[in-house]
């Protein structure tokens, strides 16, 4: 049970990191557009 909780918690934490820093990040402009 502990093993499951630790692993599930870890995976959830990783998912949260991805969501917070990438998926939910406000849109940004490119600082050096070069067509």
């Amino acid at each position, binding site marked *: 049970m502990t*093993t499951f909780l*630790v*692993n599930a918690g*870890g*995976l959830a*934490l*990783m998912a949260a*990191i*991805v969501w*917070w*820093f*990438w998926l*939910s*990040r*406000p849109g*940004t*402009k*490119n*600082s*050096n*557009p*070069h*067509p």
Partner: protein
Amino acid sequence: MNDTPVLKTALSISGASCQGCANKIRKALAPLTGNADLVEVDLEQQTVALPEGVDTAEAARIVADTGYPAEPCPGPEAVIDTVNHTSPAAAQTPAAAGSSSGDDAQVLAISGASCASCVNSIETALMAVPGVTHAYMNLADNTATVRGGTQPQALVRAVESAGYGARVIEDQDQADDDRQQEDKRQYRVLMVKMAVSLGLGVALMIWGMGFGSMTITDANQITWISLGILTLGVMIATGGQFYVSAWKAFRHHNANMDTLIALGTGTAWLYSMVVACVPEVLPEMARHVYFEASAMIIGLINLGQALELRAKGKTSEAVRRLLDLRARTARVIRDGEEQDLPVEQVLKGDHIRVRPGEKLPVDGVIIDGTTRIDESMLTGEPMPAGKGPGDEVSAGTLNTHGAIIYQATRVGSETALAHIIRLVKKAQGSKPEIGRLADRISAVFVPAVMLIAVASALIWYNIGPDPAVVHMMIAATTVLIIACPCALGLATPMSVMVGVGKAAEYGALIRQGDALQTAGKIDLVILDKTGTITEGRPVVTQVHALTGDQHQLLALAAGLEQHSEHPLAEAIVARARQDGIEPYRITGFEALNGKGVQGELDGQPVRIGNRRWLESQGLAVAPAEAAASAITADAGTPLFLAHGQDVLGVIGVADAIKTDSEAAIARLHAAGIRVMMLTGDIEATARAIAGRAGIDDYRAEVLPEDKADVVNDMRRKGHTVAMVGDGINDAPALAAADVGFAIGTGTDVAIESASITLMRGSLHGVPDAIEISRATIRNIHQNLFGAFIYNSLGIPVAAGLLYPVWGVLMSPILAGVAMSLSSVTVVTNANRLRLFKTSHKAPAMERCQ
């Protein structure tokens, strides 16, 4: 200049970042304006200037179709007469003069930024402000430069909302002083914090290992809980800034170096506190506390930042040295009275007296007295220059010889020195293409490290040896601590600052970080002849007297030519003056266009002119023919001199090759660079000059407007081209080249079109700048390589990759040491550039003089 059509800023564009983009826009607009040269693209301000009357809406559409979003400038207030912009000093408005960059850029002083991720967050926040076209943060001096029309307060709010501090820099000098004071204060604070946290960490370690135990038992549980609380207090007091910064960044979906420090030390403390408070939830082997690690990591990072701060101060030494050149007071003569005034109170038109040994406070023109002025601090030229009434003098130079009175023409931020300081600062704050690599990586780096830390913790938990909980905590903490990308953020700006400063020491003003990078790749240097390879003013090179009396020949020639203003005449008069020859008094002077000049001495005509004219007057020039041929072969113009019916001799006048041009060209060859010359001269003269200067290739009879075509042609053939020139007619070629070098003694237009300005007339500035550029880019590569390698090797080791082979798991404390060392190493390596010397050494004789 008078023929130049007035161009008006018509479009504001975005996305044009290099000369290639500018050329594309110019070419696209050529059908509309009738000539691509009538289109001016300002990459700095992201504007396009067009001749009056051109349909701006149509122009905007064409530019947008080319791939660069463009719109017509909104109203008359945005219109700038670009012709007036050709004089950098004259163009400075008081408001612009206050900013460090001298254009529409706004400069913010940033606080709280510590790594490449912070830089990225701040730039992103600034770019999101409506109207901002360009934002660049320089971590080396903690400033952000923003271009585009927007309110300063909006920029400050944007930075603050990203979790950092910002204020607008209005007075650059004051800002520099403030920053120096702040750096000193910050250094002291960091050292105290370091002593406290490191002291606690070491004490805990000694106590735990020597007298007690780091493993929790019933006997020491209360003590460790108390020590844990004490540690928390010290962590907040000495490392509070990391937690605050990390939290602010987190709220804005950002992560930075402080995030890693906060998570790393926080994890170690939290784990230890759980162990201390409820040890029974963990296996006996895992009941070990790591309070000392949290305290020591914060101490070490504080130490690293203090050392970094001290080293950063040294990189801006070049600018400080320039600032130190300024005189504090001026002896101003007003209403016949002399008074010592602070230099800020000197007005244009004031008469200023300068005695020997004093610095000149402002720019001006000498009205009385002659002297020698040491301009080496501005131009790198070791010989003091002779100056007399009518000659221009610059602020910051040293009067070495006589007392002079001069009239102030440019004061305060308009002086050449102030302009140089602005240029150097601007270039130091700009980022070469290579620096953007670090930004792109750091934006995803910190969150990626957090993922790696969690993943490695899970791996240790699932397949690691006992005590698995301890190992997973150590691995996660160590990964977080070792991965701090502070070295990455410093790698480029530190080297650019030192490199640009070093170039300035050698009299080469680099206007853009990109030029610094491109200069290192140059494989073809195209030189304009007149004023670049040659002196740009004719001098007497040969005197052949058929009578054998050179003295008499020059006295006669000077007597006649002193009435003329032709450059050839000036050369002859100058030579006579130089030789101490008193010119004859000649009357009845008359200039005959295209033929020569004549006058009268002792009732007989004296004539100087070309062969055809003298022959047409019935004079026998044949005896001087051999001498004339020698002059022509030497790329000179022969002038025949006759008194009465006797041809007395021939004087050769030529635009002499600068004494050091040949050596400078040889240095370019040694660096593996081909050298080409462009000249409007005829083939024979071009060949003679190219041969003497050691030039590989030349184009003769090139019209001024064709120079840019030659540059473009060479670029199309795959060369990375540098163009070196000094005249207005060189400006298009300078702008078309990958790197334009303007000879600083040349025109303002040339200087504005070039990306590098050479403050002295010598060509040695070109190989100097190229060598410094190569050294700087090499230094940046070393720094980036070091920083990347450190992170790429450090993270797997911290995650425990070596454990299966050697049973080694890195301690979080060692990770803290390594992280601090990486930043200090990068900064130290950048400072190493300060010792760089180019391959050129001024002749010993010049130095002695």
